[in-house]
């Protein structure tokens, strides 16, 4: 048993094993990411005509995943401890959701202001109000999506007996990353037209 464990542990550090496990996932994710790339490409004129919008893109790609990861790992810990309840009256659940929404409000307000400053310096300037509206509306929508996906993924782990740390957190993070650009683009079109 001990020898088999050592073999397993050694085997998991071979190049073939690491690449073999990881590369198919990366291929699948890249294909999915082309969906958000397609949205960028379709809206090329909007983005290249208002380069300040491009300032928002990396944060929109990463931040939904960050928020989802924070909530998912907190829910996952409670699941492991056996104290997680899927009940709309569960106070701790709401506490977590409120904290995530507060974090999103802070981060995306700061992003709107920062993008405005950057726009003044290096890119075509856009109105502060417009940028704040785009950043906060798309950011809060993304936060709500991240919360919904985290809850759904943790619930699936819970019912299927999966470990959320291994399965659902990467799924939530990557889905939020992909949706970030889609949500930003949708909001930007509505606000700018």
């Amino acid at each position, binding site marked *: 048993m001990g020898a088999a464990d050592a073999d397993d*542990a050694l085997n998991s*550090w*071979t*190049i073939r094993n*690491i*690449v073999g496990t*990881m*590369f198919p*996932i*990366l*291929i699948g*994710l*890249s294909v999915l*990411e*082309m969906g*958000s*790339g*397609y949205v*960028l*490409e379709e809206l*090329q004129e909007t*983005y*290249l005509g208002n*380069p300040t*919008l*491009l*300032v*928002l*893109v*990396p*944060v929109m*790609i*990463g*931040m939904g*995943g*960050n928020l989802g990861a*924070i909530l998912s790992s*907190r829910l996952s810990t409670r699941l492991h401890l056996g104290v997680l309840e899927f009940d709309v009256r569960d106070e*701790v659940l*709401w*506490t*977590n959701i*409120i*904290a995530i929404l*507060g*974090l999103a409000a*802070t*981060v995306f307000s*700061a*992003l709107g202001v*920062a*993008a405005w400053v*950057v*726009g003044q310096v*290096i*890119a075509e300037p856009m109105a502060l109000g417009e940028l704040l509206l785009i950043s906060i509306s798309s950011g809060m929508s993304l936060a709500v999506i991240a919360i919904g996906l985290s809850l759904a993924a943790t619930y699936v782990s819970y019912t299927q007996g999966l470990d959320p740390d291994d399965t659902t957190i990467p799924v939530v993070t*990557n889905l939020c*990353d*992909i949706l970030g*650009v889609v949500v930003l683009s949708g909001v930007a079109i509505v606000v700018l037209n």
Partner: protein
Amino acid sequence: MEGRQSAWRIYRESLPILVVSLAGGIFAGSVLGSDGMTAGFERFPGMLLLLPAFLATRGNVYGALGARISSGLHQGMIDPEFSWDRRLVNAVAASFINGISVSVFIAVLSWGILHVLGRESARLVELLSIMLVSGVLTSTTLIFGLLGLVFASYEYGLDPDNLIGPIVTTLGDVFGVVFLFIALTIAEVVF
């Protein structure tokens, strides 16, 4: 009342990490919105299509490396220093292979999608060169930067598990777009 206090605690604990990631993202965004970069996007159609894949997949490659190294340190399977240790060399080589192959793959994919749709596209050799140059530079910097920071934090008694996420996001955002900018600039001169 108690609920409100603990929401505030979660907020306070999580905010610093998000601010670090926000700062990296804003820097990356400023490079993306700069004149040189937007000129490159116009000159090489297909770059915008592959941009999200380029930005997002790196988190998975180097996050996985960071998690593996961190577990290895905790289990005593590797030492917190650069050495020709078999496991460390394997993990680093595998990350190079993953990081560079995926860069090549998204260049081909982006070119293929535009061709199938009958859209204007940069030549395959142009997209491939840009992704290869930025992929090699980003992999090298991220792998050695990540290992250095993880080893240093472990030696200082910090748990790398708490630091890998933000380190990868920030280094990835900052260096990813800088090297993309460099690769686009080289491509504009060469092609």
